[in-house]
């Protein structure tokens, strides 16, 4: 009851919506950077076998670092700023996207590539018209993992940096000894997770699977 009341109040004075918006734009920006970077890195790794040998194990190691472990480094480099939060988000998500991109490309049937080249696709055309769509079922699971890490990263960084966003509101609740606020924000964080998973990723996944006849 109190939780509901707190959420209503915070919605009324705008602080909740502002918190959601702040966390979301950091998430979206960080995830976008991680996705683009991960695609480039993954394609690079797949293209150059030697790069794969040396960078491969390094990236596997980097991927095992929990998002929150990047926070001290972010603080040292960027201070408690937006850039710091986004750094944590990107660092948390980048390597999951990279690894999935790489294995997705490795698993493309060679005939698709041969057929593409045979019909005049080379260079960037081959990447955008064959490699990315052919690896897409893998890419999407990379994006999904990336989003999960990114979301954890955003909230963790906001709690520790204590600058705006949902993480900050959690911190504030703790500071004021306000259990209702803390619980309420947790519920909001969970709801956003469910919505993004259910609406964004499930939708894309379902569409891809049905096109490929895998559903």
């Amino acid at each position, binding site marked *: 009851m109190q939780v509901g009341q707190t959420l209503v109040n915070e919605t009324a004075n705008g602080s909740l919506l502002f918190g959601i918006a702040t966390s979301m734009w950091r998430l979206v920006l960080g995830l976008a950077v991680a996705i683009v970077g991960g695609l480039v890195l993954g394609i690079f790794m797949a293209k150059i076998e030697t790069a794969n040998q040396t960078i491969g194990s390094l990236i596997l190691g980097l991927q095992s670092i929990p998002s929150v472990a990047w926070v001290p480094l972010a603080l040292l480099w960027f201070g408690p700023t937006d850039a710091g939060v986004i750094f944590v988000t990107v660092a948390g998500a980048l390597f999951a996207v990279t690894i999935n991109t790489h294995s997705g490309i490795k698993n493309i049937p060679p*005939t*698709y590539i*041969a*057929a593409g080249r045979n*019909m005049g*696709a080379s260079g960037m055309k081959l990447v955008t018209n064959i490699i990315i*769509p052919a690896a897409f079922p893998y890419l999407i699971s990379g994006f999904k993992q990336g989003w999960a890490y990114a979301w954890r990263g955003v909230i963790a960084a906001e709690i520790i940096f204590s600058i705006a966003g949902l993480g900050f509101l959690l911190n504030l609740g703790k500071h004021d000894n306000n259990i209702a606020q803390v619980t309420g924000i947790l519920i909001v964080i969970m709801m956003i997770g469910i919505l993004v998973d259910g609406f964004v990723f499930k939708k894309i996944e379902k569409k891809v699977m049905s*096109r490929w006849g895998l559903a």
Partner: protein
Amino acid sequence: MTKLQAKNIVKHYDHNGNSVLALDGITMNVEEGDFVCIVGPSGCGKSTFLNIVAGLEKPDSGEILLNGKPISATGPDRTMVFQEGALFPWLKVIDNVEFGLKMAGIPKEERREISQRYLDMMQLTKFTDSYTYQLSTGMKQRVAIARALAMDPEILLMDEPFAALDSQTRDLLLVELQLIWERTKKTIIFVTHNISESVILGNRVMIFKNRPSKIKKEVIIDYKRPRLAEDTNLQKYYHEILEELKSEVMTGIRGESK
């Protein structure tokens, strides 16, 4: 006019440190509008040869000339119909057929017109907007043929395109392909391990020897078209080729069990 010349093509592969000589000097001339079939035992290098003609692989030595000019890479003038599984599952049938045209930068309206024509020819109009998993194997191969024809290549390369089909579908497509060839006057190189297929389709049948492969014999098939699978007059060609291949298959099996 000589459309394509293969000059002394040599190609080897490395198998865990062992060198395997696949092609040991293949030389052939293909005239414009010719229909050449290649038969040979499994693993003798038929696909390798076709891939080299397509520019997908490079020979160790020798060269391929198209209209007298050496080729160095893949080109839309030589399109391949792969054995199977080369349609793109992320595209609709129509977009598969238009893929090469799109890569060539042909505007959408023109692409639609061309793809409709070939989908029509292949009797696939009803499946324009289907995805590939919704098609039978025979329909998929027809899409693959439409896709290759849509690019209006100078040479159509076909690597056992009917191998995965049931015999009724294959017999139908064997007739269809002859009609298309007569209508479009395409130059075709068709690889198969099925002797009757080669006899029905080819003006000339090139018999490849076992690895390291050379051309063992060329059989000319001068017989009216469209040829049907059940035509008994084709028997003598069939047996001529069979005799040549039998000994190859035997030495091949002995070689592999060593």
